[in-house]
């Protein structure tokens, strides 16, 4: 008798999933509005902008020195991080994460959109930090682009870490590493300045900044798809 080879369980599962993937209707979800994304975040937003104003005040007091660019870079993602951690803390303290994760617009998707919008907003606001420190011309653009890359990548990595670990504790490593790195680099500020302003071409700064933003948008799109058709 000829032996009959039956497919293994995993193979059956894969085939089933492939059939379903093509057969299930793909309804495009409308994106939630700002009210839904930032709902109940007013106190956290106020505190974050308080921190931003404090940083801005600090920059205004700062005398222009070789260390200024690094200090600006150090401060760049801090408003984002303060909003990120306060936002999670508020949701966790109110015990709403599990409930929100069960809704059409699941918590992870909402937090991703929230951080994307907030990052873009603070990128603009942080231009004031650079202006406050007296940078202009190509130096202004270089620093703005480097700061934007630093901030957007911070946001992206913090969200990916949260997605992978399900906890924000791991993301706390990111600002810690960033602050330590900047403080260490302050000792070599002249070399870093030369690297930032002279060695790395302006176009590369801009490409990295735009690339970071594109990566963040792609990631948000992936989370959006996962929210809509997967979990």
């Amino acid at each position, binding site marked *: 008798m000829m032996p009959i080879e039956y497919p293994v369980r995993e193979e059956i599962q894969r085939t089933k*999933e492939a059939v379903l993937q093509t057969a299930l209707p793909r309804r495009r979800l409308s994106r939630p509005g700002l009210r839904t994304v930032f*709902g109940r975040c007013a106190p956290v937003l106020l505190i974050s902008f308080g921190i931003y104003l404090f940083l801005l005040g600090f920059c205004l007091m700062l005398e222009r020195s070789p260390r200024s660019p690094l200090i600006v870079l150090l401060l760049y993602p801090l408003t984002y991080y303060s909003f990120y951690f306060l936002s999670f803390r508020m949701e966790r303290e109110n*015990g709403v994460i*599990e409930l929100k994760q*069960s*809704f059409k617009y699941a918590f992870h998707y909402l937090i991703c959109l929230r951080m994307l919008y907030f990052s873009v907003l603070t990128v603009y606001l942080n231009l004031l930090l650079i202006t406050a420190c007296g940078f202009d011309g190509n130096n202004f653009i270089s620093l703005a682009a480097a700061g934007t890359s630093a901030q957007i990548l911070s946001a992206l990595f913090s969200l990916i870490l949260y997605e992978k670990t399900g906890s924000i504790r791991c993301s706390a490593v990111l600002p810690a590493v960033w602050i330590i790195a900047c403080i260490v680099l302050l000792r070599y500020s002249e070399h870093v300045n030369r690297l930032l302003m002279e060695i790395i071409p302006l176009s590369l700064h801009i490409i990295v900044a735009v690339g970071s933003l594109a990566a963040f948008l792609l990631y948000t799109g992936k989370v959006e798809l996962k929210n809509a*058709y997967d979990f």
Partner: protein
Amino acid sequence: MLTISEVSKSYGKKRVLDDISIELENGLYGLLAPNGAGKTTLLKLIVTLLSPDRGEILWNGAPVQKLGASYREIIGYLPQQFGYYKYNTPVQYLDYLAALKGLPREGLKEKIFSVLDTVGLSDVAQVKMRKFSGGMIQRVGIAQALMGDSRLLILDEPTAGLDPKERARFRNLIAEMSKNRIVILSTHIVSDVESVSGRVLMLKDRKLVRNQSASALCSELEGKVFEIRVKTDDQAAALKKEHFILSERNEAGSMILRYYSEQPAGLEGERLCPPNLEDLFLVMYR
């Protein structure tokens, strides 16, 4: 129809659910098991907060993992720990949650007041929730689960914190709700399940061991539950040694023991009793 097919789930090396299979159609299901038996895990799998290690959960034949938001749209979920923003009023909070559920704005206010009326909170609809008791917060939780077109209502310990009057009102409410949707009610309070559940699902040793009506389950103990009045502590101690005691109460200076025994003990004054779900619960999880 919700189908749970050969679902298993572990946390690390600890297996919590093992090979659970069940088909649920419109109606009320009471999920009964002691604390830590995996009730909440099973509900979280159904709500997609967790994914199974093995097996799948299907909604009308399609895996819920692949249905994503369109599946979550039809779920009304009350978690064990219902979170809320204490400086919100119920109306503000429900309005916000409705936005997260993607409900249309049109007619939303009326809908919110209607569900608040259903759970008996219409008179405090505009009061900040920080002033609410635990029972009132629980009712806000039930209200949010009822909002929208919830064809699958999942309630994890919904009667915790409710007083007897609120519990009775809640039981009537979910009995009504279950006419045209699937309602899964998880609890360790046996009387809640006994009074409302169409079917009782019981978990034991990580497996689903029962899926029957409460009366069918009780009939398993038919002829095995007895009561006896004892006058001395020695008599009571002797009985406790020999049989599994289901309950004991003092009445007119003597003690009445309710116990489970495969055979009548042949004691004087022994009386055969109709078994209830609590008896079965105690016998099963002894």
